[in-house]
């Protein structure tokens, strides 16, 4: 029988090499999959990884689009990573993302059609508060009654989705929308729009916010006492208590920060690329961000790279669909392989496989 045994000191070398190895293995396994589908594997893999960055036809457009797609993922994942380091499991970022978007949109629609400079800043505030408030529900229930935050935050995603649907069909429905669901398009309301900052790139304030979040988290973990508390609480709760960490306070803070980040991501998305609250506004960023956080080893810089890698597979996957007629499900299987190899090799670099009962 095989069992896993934790390595006392995971090798530094392998920590760096495993992601590269995983990408290489994905290319081999994915190449096989594409070959079975009757496509040229080298061409398929080149299309996914190379074309979005360097193909003449697509690169000028898709390079900045990588940042646009990675933006919300990185912003949410950075927020989540703080909690995850301290063993605080906010699984409900998707719900906080939705509530941030709804609260921000509510501010915009309340002012419509007035034009004031302060509307967009107020929306940002409302977005952060919306996500924060939604995350405070599991935080309060945990601190007060000891409920499990994984379950409560996850279940609240479904509540938020229903609130979103209600908003799209009810209170926020565009009165000029010919009876169709969905709010007014905020892109067409200048005071509330999250505009394109550099023409032709699609880059908006959400991308800037994601970059700032990476820097802030990096500084926080390196230099601030809060970062120290987070790390020590994750490694040894007992030691943390001696170091003066108040578990409830830390829990509230981490849930709040991750909720606010998710809410902000939702706000920037609804006021920018997406434009409106509809019943299908959320597309799973809150869940994908969990993968991004782990792919990036809960380190801010790692998360930035992981977010960009995932964005690359999304955008490259689309180009592969239209250039090579690959089905969307093959692309998803390919993405799944990438995650499988990354996390699988991660286990091997932290644990060693031992044969048990072989001596008999």
């Amino acid at each position, binding site marked *: 029988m095989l069992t896993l045994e934790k390595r006392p000191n995971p090798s530094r070398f392998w920590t760096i090499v495993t992601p590269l190895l995983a990408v290489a293995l994905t290319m081999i396994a994915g190449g096989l999959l594409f070959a079975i589908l009757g496509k040229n594997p080298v061409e398929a893999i080149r299309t996914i990884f190379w074309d979005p960055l360097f193909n003449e036809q697509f690169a000028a*457009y898709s390079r900045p689009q990588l940042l*646009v797609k990675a933006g919300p993922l990185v912003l949410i994942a950075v927020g989540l990573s703080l909690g995850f380091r301290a063993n605080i499991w906010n699984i409900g970022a998707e719900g906080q993302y939705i509530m941030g978007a709804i609260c921000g949109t509510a501010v915009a629609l309340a002012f419509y059609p007035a034009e004031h400079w302060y509307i967009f800043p107020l929306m940002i505030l409302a977005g952060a508060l919306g996500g924060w408030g939604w995350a405070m529900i599991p935080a309060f229930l945990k601190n007060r009654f000891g409920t499990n935050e994984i379950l409560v935050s996850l279940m609240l995603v479904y509540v938020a989705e229903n609130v979103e649907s209600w908003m799209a069909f009810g209170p926020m429905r565009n009165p000029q929308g010919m009876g169709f669901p*969905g709010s007014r398009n905020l892109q067409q309301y200048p005071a509330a729009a999250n505009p394109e900052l550099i023409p032709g790139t699609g880059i908006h304030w959400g991308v800037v916010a994601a970059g700032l979040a990476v820097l802030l988290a990096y500084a926080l973990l390196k230099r601030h006492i809060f970062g120290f508390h987070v790390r020590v609480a994750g490694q040894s709760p007992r030691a943390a208590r001696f170091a003066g960490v108040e578990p409830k306070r830390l829990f509230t803070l981490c849930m709040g920060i991750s909720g606010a980040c998710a809410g902000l991501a939702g706000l920037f998305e609804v006021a920018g*690329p*997406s434009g*409106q609250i509809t019943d299908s506004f959320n597309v799973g960023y809150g869940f994908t961000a969990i993968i991004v956080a782990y792919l990036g080893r809960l380190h801010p810089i790692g998360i930035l790279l992981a977010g960009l890698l995932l964005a690359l597979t999304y955008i490259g996957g689309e180009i592969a669909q*239209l*250039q090579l007629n690959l089905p969307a499900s093959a692309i998803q299987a390919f993405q799944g392989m990438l995650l499988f190899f990354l996390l699988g090799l991660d286990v091997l670099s932290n644990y060693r496989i031992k044969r048990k009962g072989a001596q008999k």
Partner: protein
Amino acid sequence: MKRRDFLAGTAATGTVLASGLANRAMAAEPLKVGFIYLGVPGDGGWTYQHDQARQKMLAHFGKAVETKVIENVPEGADAERSITQLALAGCKLIFTTSFGYMDPTINVAKKFPNVKFEHCTGYKRAANVSTYDARFYEGRAVIGTIAGRMTKTNKIGYIATFPIPEVVQGINSAYIHAKKVNPNVEMKIIWVSTWFDPAKEADAAQAMIDAGVDVLMQHTDSTAAMAKAKAAGIYAFGQSSDMIQYAPKPRISSIIDNWAPYYIQRVQDVLDGKWKSEGVWMGIGSGVVEIGEITDAVPAEVKAEALALKDKIAKGEYAPFTGPLNKQDGSPWLKAGEVAKDDVLSGLNFYVEGIQGKLPT
């Protein structure tokens, strides 16, 4: 070689050369046509029918046309990127096949004035953006007639998706025509808030069956309700695709979305340089809304009645929304003989008189 032969030879060579050149010119520059799908072609419903039409269009034009497809595109920000990529890939005509692609289509169209766009079911147009939609309610009138005749309990079920005009038109049309042939008919409506969710659709079907419904209609795409209808021994109608595997019973007929005639027409327009921006709303007459085969489980005279109605609609002799009709609250909507205008229908947001329950908002 005789002179005559030589001449014939050169002529032949000339023709071969000319046609060869023409072929090469066509082969080098097939028209690239792009498609954005909300789901995957395997959904058996909405996306499946668009993909079937794409394939028929391809078969029709052969090498003159090439298609590029992106599947599973969420409505919103991702749609804008995907449509842009199709345009960057050289597509000159792009079909965006879901309502939620409306604003993204308009945004991308501004950046690519030389590309033609076709948006399905929307209402925003531009110089290079057309809209197309189907009068599914015409089909509902036909199957509503069959339903009114076939029900024994006088209870017809309708699995509704979202309270948008297309669905409200469908419910009203089905009810009006069932009531015409069976004044005692009652319609039970369950809103499932999804286009495709087999579990929810099955639950809704079961709830209606338990409430005594014996003819089931659906606006959703899966066959889950059909399976429940089969188990309960009641009648049902296929939706989006034919669902022929459930014939002859429970599936006694169906409403099929057949976009192929339109896709062929519009690609031809681009090839001929005759494409113009317009908004079209096609019904049974154009072949876009099809009534699937009415099976032998339906008595011959009912079948004849339904087909006669279908013919009258196809020829434009009858419009399903013709007065006298009152709104649900009893206030008058259409006077006797008055036909509902398209701009009212395309924003329809009320039930007609006789339907029970409140239209969700």
